[in-house]
């Protein structure tokens, strides 16, 4: 079973809560996905406005574990302050740490990310860093105190799947004991199945479900794909080869010799 920061999780499908057509469809999608962990965020709210309060009630009714993010933060200071605010509101030491370095790709600023991860880990946070597939950055994040990594598959919301298979395989091979959760870029269930087949421990999906024509049906499809990928990994996939190997036994082949 997957364990992150000593919390055992049955589901390897984490779900984001943004961009659904309605709160009812969000709830139904979380249930259809069988997700145990959902990501949440913090935003400015004016006095008298109650949308945040309604959202928080809905999430609590679902009975899932929340993983707050620091989405939109572009500096270490912003991310650290947002993490403190999230810990108070959501009552969890978990933080999905995002420090964005570039707005077109929403690529993480890995230097700021590492610094913020070090500060927050020292303060008792359990950091889930949204990072790239870079091996050296991964090592620095682990040194900083992270015990989980969330490498991107592709830019957030792009639906491109696993863009850099070579580097993702290398990341998996280098850190066999570290929970690795693919965060961002997954577009369809086959991408999620592929991530699990490659040995990634879980995937975090948001846009691909929320913006599907039928988010609830898509959430169910992702749940099946994640289950299939996970089972396939456990079953031991064959090695990829360049040339054919006959699957039918060649001994006793007719008309030969």
């Amino acid at each position, binding site marked *: 079973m997957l364990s992150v920061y000593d919390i055992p999780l049955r589901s390897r499908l984490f779900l*984001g809560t943004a961009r659904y057509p309605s709160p009812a469809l969000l709830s139904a999608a979380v249930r259809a996905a069988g997700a145990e962990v959902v990501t949440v*965020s*913090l935003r400015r709210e004016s006095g008298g406005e109650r949308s945040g309060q309604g959202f928080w009630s809905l999430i609590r009714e679902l009975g899932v574990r929340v993983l707050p993010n620091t989405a939109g933060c572009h500096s270490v200071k912003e991310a650290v302050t947002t993490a403190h605010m999230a810990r*108070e509101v959501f009552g969890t030491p978990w933080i999905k740490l995002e420090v964005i370095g570039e707005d077109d790709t929403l690529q993480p600023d890995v230097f700021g990310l590492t610094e913020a991860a070090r500060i927050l880990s020292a303060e008792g946070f359990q950091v889930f860093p949204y990072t790239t597939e870079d091996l050296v950055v991964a090592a620095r994040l682990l040194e900083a105190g992270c015990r989980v990594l969330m490498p991107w598959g592709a830019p957030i919301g792009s639906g491109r799947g696993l863009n850099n298979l070579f580097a993702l395989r290398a990341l998996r091979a280098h850190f066999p004991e570290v929970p690795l959760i693919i965060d961002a870029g997954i577009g369809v269930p086959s991408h999620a199945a592929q991530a699990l087949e490659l040995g990634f421990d879980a995937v975090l999906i948001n846009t691909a479900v929320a913006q599907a024509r039928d988010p609830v049906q898509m959430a169910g499809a992702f749940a099946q794909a994640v289950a299939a990928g996970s089972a396939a990994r456990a079953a031991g996939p064959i090695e990829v080869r360049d040339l054919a190997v006959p699957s039918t036994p060649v001994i006793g082949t007719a008309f030969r010799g």
Partner: protein
Amino acid sequence: MRIQVNGDWREVSAGWLAGALADLGYAGTVVSTAVNGEFVAVQAREHTPLAEGDRLEVLAPMQGG
């Protein structure tokens, strides 16, 4: 006294954070606060003074990815 609340200038009568939040209509809501970029915990709101021109952030739970 005028302070910036989530980027907008607002008039508040209370000179401390908890009072200002009540003035602004946040009573009874789950929000988290920062003053001039520094997190201020719930327990500290009663003892946190505000000054003219302070920047107050008030954040609430929201959908996220």
